[in-house]
């Protein structure tokens, strides 16, 4: 019973929630609002950003930043859909939602590796 895989997905959900709540807003404000408004001056120049995201630590950070909130979404969406009445296809929903998060994580890993 304890070997149920639920703790793993709940852990990813929790970790993704922390990132979505604390880190994602900072990135949205910096790159989505302050940057376009000209508040960061030369900080967002192509060469500088490329050099920054080419560093392995930044790559790992960006991977966590993208992947974990995807699993957060997957867990929420899975339970929302089940609670909306698709209880009978529970397994399929779990497979589709976590599968989507896994695909998104793999794609982001591929993009980050190639930088």
């Amino acid at each position, binding site marked *: *019973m*304890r070997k149920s895989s639920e703790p793993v997905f*709940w*852990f990813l959900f929790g970790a993704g929630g922390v990132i979505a709540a604390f880190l994602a807003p900072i990135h949205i404000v910096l790159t989505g609002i302050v940057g376009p408004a000209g508040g960061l001056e030369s900080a967002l120049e192509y060469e500088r950003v490329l050099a920054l995201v080419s560093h392995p630590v930044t790559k790992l950070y960006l991977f966590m930043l993208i992947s974990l909130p995807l699993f957060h979404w997957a867990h929420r969406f899975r339970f929302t859909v089940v*609670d909306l009445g698709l*209880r009978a296809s529970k397994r399929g929903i779990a497979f589709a939602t976590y599968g989507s998060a896994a695909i998104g994580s793999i794609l982001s890993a591929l993009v980050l590796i190639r930088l």
Partner: protein
Amino acid sequence: MSKATIVLEVLRYRPEQEQEPTFQIYESEYREDWVVLDAINHIKDHIDGTLSYRWSCRMGVCGSCGMMINGEPKLSCATFLRDYYPDPIRVEPLANFPIERDLVIVMDDFMEKLTSVKPWILREHEKPISEGEYRQTPAELARYKQFSMCINCMLCYSACPVYALDPQFTGPAAIALAHRYNLDSRDQGRSWREQVLSTEEGIWACTYVGTCTVVCPVDVDPAGAIQQAKLSTTTDWFRDVLMPWKGR
């Protein structure tokens, strides 16, 4: 001067005479210091002796008089008429349970779930009485005390949308009480209880809506208990997988 009155719309269900529940309108005497249970007792004593409902202590201790009051699960002994007056009050049996009769629900499901988590001190080896009692520090008591305040009133089951959708769910009060014993320094039954709790019908069915904690009349915080149980189960899981040689 005529006495002030308040209208109560009370759900009636008498299985020997009707297929479906109906509402009956009663006009009860109103007093500012009366709770809904006082009005229902007044109806029973002076207007309609056939009305059935559960109650006992009248002071929020026994947990018997839970009812849906204007759609919210509440202890009828702790819900004042003056908060609704002069509007009518709708009184129904606790939601998410079958109705036995009028405001009386069938609580078998809750009783089964409660016993399924063994909410009592489990010991691998019982200490002989000659060795004295199991001693506990105030800090050890403080760890579980909040969760031990549960009065088994079932308001949390009525409020829980997960239990409404999936009656297999172990439910807030039973999990909170299991957690209470898991946190007790005298107890050794945690891995046993985990077999019931750490399942899809146990803690993992909870989506942390939190209405159980909102309606709890004694501030047990079952939602918090379930979250804590999820965390400790997840820690156990990772420990078992990463360090399988460390048996518990």
